[in-house]
């Protein structure tokens, strides 16, 4: 009895899970595996369109014989690269009409013209013509003929489905793509963005954890950058930082902080003279990192604040009795309490920052030294139109990500063991 019940339970569970699992599998897991497949192929953006046989129907009257009408089909292969095999054609003609001298490739059967055009090479074009005669000798309605659309079908190779594989893409990724520059930019961006957002998160959480007028209001405001749409925020920053009409540069110029406008998003290096040494700062990258920190410190803030509010008050009271100062209290009470949250945050933010695409794309488009791996996926796939290369870069990202996640779950597991 209980055996059947557990069987029913299992079956119900699978039925309930099936739709969700199916959807997630086809939209998330399938593409990840498909990336592997595509990355070993030489595929351009233009190759992924399946070639189609097409026909444009033009209807013309024939001079001096109103009972006849000429139909011209402009036939073509939509692809410039691939052939189409066994092209079949089908069109209807109105009642009481019949075609004159029908092409040999075609047959008429109860008002339907069926044609077998055979194979079409790439770029194939042909003007195919039919003359219709009205059996009753009256005028043929042009509009009626025009309203009927011909149907075409054919077989073609799908470049994605054949089994020609190559290692070219990976060779290009590692040797012709300034790979190490790409990798170092990505790590630079990820690391400083993560550390920055955590540091500011701690500061903000410390602030809001104290009592002051307008505290709840302050908490909502601090989360605005995180919940706002990235498109709106990125464009606002772009206008703010514009070298000529931007508010920031104009303010700095107005108050004589700088003499020349700074192109914060368009300049790769800024040379700073520091005690006789020329220091090169990656300006655009730094700006993008600052945007990143501005936008994502709220998450760190929220996590840390939640943890801070759970710290028992007695600990601080005891420290007061012992005569500890604010700095000492922070180092020996607060920090040990939040260190676990910080390490989890570091991993989450690191992984998410590593994959950040929108922010950099909208701010700089990957120019002036801000090209990270995710930006490169887009560039390879859609700017250079090399789908295979884009997939190969995606694979590199997935592999690095798996390594990070392995470390993250090990860390999480160890935390769980400790508690």
């Amino acid at each position, binding site marked *: 009895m209980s055996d059947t019940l557990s069987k029913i339970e299992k079956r119900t569970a699978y039925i309930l899970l099936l739709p969700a699992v199916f959807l997630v599998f086809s939209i998330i897991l399938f593409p990840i595996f498909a990336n592997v497949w595509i990355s070993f192929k030489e595929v351009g953006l233009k190759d992924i369109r399946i070639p189609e046989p097409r026909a444009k129907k033009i209807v013309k009257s024939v001079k001096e014989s109103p009972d006849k009408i000429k139909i011209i089909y402009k036939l073509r292969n939509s692809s410039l690269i691939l052939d189409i095999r066994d092209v079949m054609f089908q069109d209807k003609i109105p009642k009481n009409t019949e075609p004159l001298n029908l092409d040999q490739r075609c047959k008429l059967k109860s008002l339907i013209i069926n044609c077998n055009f055979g194979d079409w090479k790439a770029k194939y074009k042909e003007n195919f013509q039919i003359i219709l005669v009205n059996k009753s000798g009256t005028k043929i309605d042009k509009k009626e003929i025009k309203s009927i659309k011909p149907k075409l079908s054919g077989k073609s190779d799908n470049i994605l489905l054949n089994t020609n594989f190559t290692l070219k893409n990976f060779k290009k990724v590692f040797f012709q793509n300034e790979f190490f520059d790409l990798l170092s930019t990505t790590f630079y961006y990820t690391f400083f963005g993560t550390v920055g957002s955590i540091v500011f998160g701690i500061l*903000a959480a410390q602030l809001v954890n104290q009592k002051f007028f307008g505290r709840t209001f302050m908490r909502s405001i601090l989360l605005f950058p995180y919940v706002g749409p*990235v498109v709106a925020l990125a464009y606002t920053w772009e206008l703010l930082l514009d070298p000529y009409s931007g508010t920031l540069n104009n303010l700095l110029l107005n108050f004589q902080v700088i003499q020349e406008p700074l192109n914060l998003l368009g300049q790769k290096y800024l040379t700073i003279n520091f005690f006789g040494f020329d220091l090169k700062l990656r300006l655009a990258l730094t700006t993008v990192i600052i945007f990143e920190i501005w936008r994502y410190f709220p998450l760190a803030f929220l996590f840390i604040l939640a943890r801070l509010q759970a710290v028992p008050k007695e600990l601080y009271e005891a420290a007061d009795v012992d005569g500890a100062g*604010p700095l000492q209290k922070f180092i020996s009470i607060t920090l040990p309490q939040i260190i676990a949250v910080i390490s989890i945050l570091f991993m989450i933010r690191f992984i998410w920052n590593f994959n950040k695409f929108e922010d950099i794309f909208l701010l700089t488009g990957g120019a002036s030294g801000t090209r990270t791996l995710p930006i490169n996926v887009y560039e390879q796939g859609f700017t250079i139109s090399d789908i295979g290369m884009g997939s190969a870069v995606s694979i590199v990202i997935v592999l690095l990500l798996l390594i990070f996640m392995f470390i993250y779950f090990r860390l999480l597991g160890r935390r769980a063991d400790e508690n």
Partner: protein
Amino acid sequence: MKIKSLILYCLISSIFLFSLVSIWKVLSTLQGIDLENFNFAIILTLGIGISLINLIVGDKFHKAIKSIIFAILFTFVDGYLVQLMPIWYNIGIFGILIFYSFKIDKYNQKNLDLDHSSQTVVFEFLTLFGIVLFSFVILFPFYMMIVTSFKTQAALLINPLDFSINFAQDIKELFKSYFVIFDTYKFGRYILISTFVSVGTVIVTLIFAIPAAYAVARLNFFGKNFLSTSILIIYMFPAIVLVIPLYTVFSQLGLRNNVGGLLIVYTATTLPVAIYMLQGYFKSIPKELEEAAIMDKLNWFGIIIKIILPLSIPAISSVALYVFMIAWNEFLFSLMFLDNPNSFTLSRAIQYLSGDAETPRQYLMAGSVVVTIPVLFIFVYFEKYLVSGLTAGSVKG
């Protein structure tokens, strides 16, 4: 009195004063006032002077009298420095000084003598400084977004620092950018599409997620642990690695430029987190209720509809709000899948607008305001329910 505490107190409090005054000056400049100097040295000296006098005078005077005297003194010196400013500017400076004097009033020769007094001073002023600075840095871009949308191209070109809005003008002139984006750029249509996609995503996600979450929370089946971990792992995977295969497959299936295609993708990407949040909540519902229902011969479907759903309205609505916000803000997939202006979402439409270098910035900002306001409104209005979900990691970004 410790010398170290004294020096720190004077320096930090006057730097705090300087930053308050500077922010006020920046804001005033943005109202079209011609200010060109922060007068760092003079204001710092004044600040140090005021904080020293505050220590010397102590509580011989009432603090209100003290504050007013300081404020008048400072306002006059500052007024002399910057010359002929409108009255509201001076009132602002006066207000800042009153606030500042109230803050430094609690320091006297005695409490600067205590243990850790230098640290306490630093911490207290850093807190104040932090609150002011954080609010300013966070709110400024939003302020700029709104104000720019009410300006005209000509006014912005003449003086890019003049953010003052002329409310006296005709309402049609004031809201001109908004009229233009709705008339010329069809933003009404984009709002409808965005709303349709976001609401659709919410509904479909919930229909898929609720049964799955129930199964994960309550039923025993083979591979349950594996499934729970995979939900988390899948959630960590970024959209950018899905883009190329999805683009290829969607192109071949003719699902690009199709709002339905976008809806499928949004649903799939929000499903893991929806399941994760819901199953956590379902586990907290007492099991006895369902056992009673099984006695009444209700099937699983009945249990979900009649028992689980009514009890988890709060959790379901917070998941719904999240999914809505994620779908509304989403950009990458709408960039990849939509190239036909007839099926743009709001985010994609704004990006398209900015692609044309001729588009005046005030239209861009008006569009940004339109896309930002609904999310911020939802967030502020439902904040209580949303904050706990945020810490559960529900918004990936």
